[in-house]
């Protein structure tokens, strides 16, 4: 298992993301003898060993299942408990694209936070690049450090316990030489002046400051301008997730038929039968109708009921006509942070 490359077969000691359901992915370290308990059943680690990554795995009792996924920075982000602010993929993917992060990039990241973006950076810069990440909160620093070690990301990542706003970014034994800066700090403007000592002098450097409040942006823009950064632009990223659904087609002709049916039943006094347990509802007497399953026969006589009102209908049920529709999440992330981008150039031949 590695965040740098895929492997195919699960081995003992691997980090596996057990996909239980949408919104519930549990990271586990495959350990002989252990069992994963979920509301969809129990899953023995021993049986996972030797399975292919991506396999669907049945529960111990033969029903219920999970999927065994290989970790990636994005799936890892989804599996994180919301213990702290996370830079989500719509933001992080845009920052990486816009600042041209790639193999060989040298990243300065403060603070580390949940380290989810650190994973993404480490994956992208490869073994030719480097990620310097700083966290001032001691507990979070220790957690992140342990995690980065466990995930094997120390090959190209250096984590430092530091309040960069006071103490800057310099690190003993390392020439930071950063060309991409990401600041997710309450007051990035106090950190910006410290950057001059650690950013590259022979090429353009890009920065993104990530601030939830507009007033922080104003101060950040001022600090960037004062320090010679140019092409300053602030943007917001809005990410939405849509799901495919099906919506029943209800023709007005069927409404008219139903109203006529009610009229007929009324004039024939059939309405009186409503509360009697009818075993032969009128609507199945039609020769065109398909035979009803036994469960349906038990139901209350609803007369002609073209849209199945009052009964449980599975979305997409073949007995009805449907249209494909999309539905957005019921609660959307309407704001993460403002992203302030800028560039600094040596402004001389190099």
């Amino acid at each position, binding site marked *: 298992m590695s965040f740098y490359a895929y492997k195919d077969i699960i081995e003992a000691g691997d980090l596996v993301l057990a996909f239980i359901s949408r919104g519930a992915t549990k990271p586990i370290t495959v350990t002989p003898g252990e069992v994963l308990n979920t509301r969809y059943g129990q899953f023995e680690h021993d049986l996972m060993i030797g399975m292919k990554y991506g396999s669907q795995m049945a529960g111990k009792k033969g029903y219920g299942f999970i999927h065994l996924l290989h970790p990636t920075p994005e799936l890892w982000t989804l599996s994180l408990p919301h213990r702290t602010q996370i830079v989500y993929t719509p933001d992080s993917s*845009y920052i990486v694209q816009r600042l041209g992060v790639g193999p060989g990039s040298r990243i300065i990241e403060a603070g580390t936070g949940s380290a989810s973006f650190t994973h993404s950076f480490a994956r992208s810069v490869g073994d030719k690049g480097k990620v310097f990440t700083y966290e001032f909160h001691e507990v979070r620093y220790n957690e992140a450090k342990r995690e980065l070690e466990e995930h094997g990301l120390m090959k190209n990542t250096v984590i430092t316990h530091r309040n960069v706003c006071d103490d800057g970014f310099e690190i003993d034994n390392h020439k930071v030489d950063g060309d991409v800066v990401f600041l997710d700090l309450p007051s990035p403007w106090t950190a910006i002046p410290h950057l001059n000592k650690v950013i590259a002098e022979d090429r353009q450097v890009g920065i993104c400051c990530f601030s939830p409040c507009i007033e922080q942006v104003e101060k950040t823009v001022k600090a960037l301008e004062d320090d010679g950064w140019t092409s300053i632009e602030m943007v917001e990223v809005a990410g939405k997730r849509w799901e495919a659904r099906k919506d029943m087609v209800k023709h007005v002709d069927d409404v008219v038929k139903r109203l006529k049916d009610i009229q007929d039943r009324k004039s024939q006094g059939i309405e009186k039968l409503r509360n009697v347990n009818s075993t032969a509802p009128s609507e199945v007497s039609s020769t065109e109708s398909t035979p009803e399953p036994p469960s349906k026969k038990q139901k209350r006589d609803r007369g002609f009921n073209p849209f199945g009102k009052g009964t449980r209908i599975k979305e997409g049920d073949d007995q009805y006509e449907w249209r494909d529709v999309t539905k957005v999440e019921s609660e959307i992330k309407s704001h993460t942070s403002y992203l302030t981008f800028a560039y600094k150039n040596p402004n001389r031949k190099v």
Partner: protein
Amino acid sequence: MNTKNRTVITANQHVLIRLPSEGTKIVELRPSGVVSLGKFGSFLVDGVLGYPFGQSFEIVEGQDVKPILSLQHSSDPKDVSEEPEGDLNKEELTKMFSENNQNIIDIGSKIQKLTNDDIEELKKSGATSSIGQHIIDQMIAGHEGFDKKTLFSQQKYLRRKQQKFLRRFTVEYLGSSQMLQYYIDKDLPRVIDLSEESLGLLMTYGNVRPGGNYLLIDETGGVVLYAMLERMGGEGQVVLVHENEHVNIIALRHAGYSEEYINRMVKTIDYLQFLEPENEKINWEDKSEEELAEMKSSKREQYEKRRERATAINSVIETVQNGNFDALISVSTLHQPTLLPRILDTVGGSRPIVIYNQYKELLLETQHVLTKDKRVLAPSIFETRVRPYQTIPGRMHPLMTMRGGGGYILWGTKVIPQEGITAVGRGI
């Protein structure tokens, strides 16, 4: 290997030129050559070489350039004490400052006394560094209401004029974002409405990184491929499926990659070869040394060509047959609901499936098909939109208009379903 220099402006490279009008241009920097920027003037290539990418310049005398801090800053970059805002005609602006725009009559161009002919005349009259500034000064003089505008609208007016006439430009590294930006400006249908943020999401959800082995469908003329190669840094492989006789990767013309590099990183295969591999494999048996020795040199050459082609085709067909790709990335106008089920099995377990489309409705159909198929876990449609702001201090607000669209991305994970498993509840 990739011979591109990503940090320093170097001769014989294609670069992106960004103009004050926010227009973009791709040019090749030929040593001792001259680059024409149309109404923004022209410059000598040698003047910009050796500076780092991202440097801005102003055309000073003839075709010479001097480095400047940015397109918005006329001054020498060493003089950083300069006020970043309103450096242009600040005195005049202040002199003409008026509290509000109560007395302005907003009847547009009528107020503008300088005719287009006047401007053309001015442009012809000199090639000095101050030509743009000179035109702007004349325009202010010819603008009856200028002193009645607010300081802010005066600045805005000047900025607009500045964008039209100042002879400034920035030389940027032609990265994938720049390449995409260029096509968005010039030929949006070519890149199927793809936005920079959607491209970024494609690369991230596709988990594109050094060493990966990817299956790609790319109808953008290679813009998506170019972004992948950028993320891979010369390690790994992309198998590119195409629908015509020959693959269209026109965007790579500007990439600066050697043919050898592209041949090593990118293998191409058409849909016929992909979907009917056994029929399309080329039966090939090497001729013996003796047979070869007997051949005429022209025949021999032909033989070697055919041999090369057969080896390449058979090799890429075998690659596809072996499968286990690290991702499927599709940016295509082909009907995905009927295509995907036929190619999904070439992707490895737990690897991402990432499908771009301009229209959400088409991904909707695709999602329904994939959900039924069971080989793709938790497919969802993602929409990402970036909204840029004006960041002038005290005047901060989102830009009033922006490009609509940008496309949608379906992302799911390739999985390996087991037969006969009963779900508890919904499971997925």
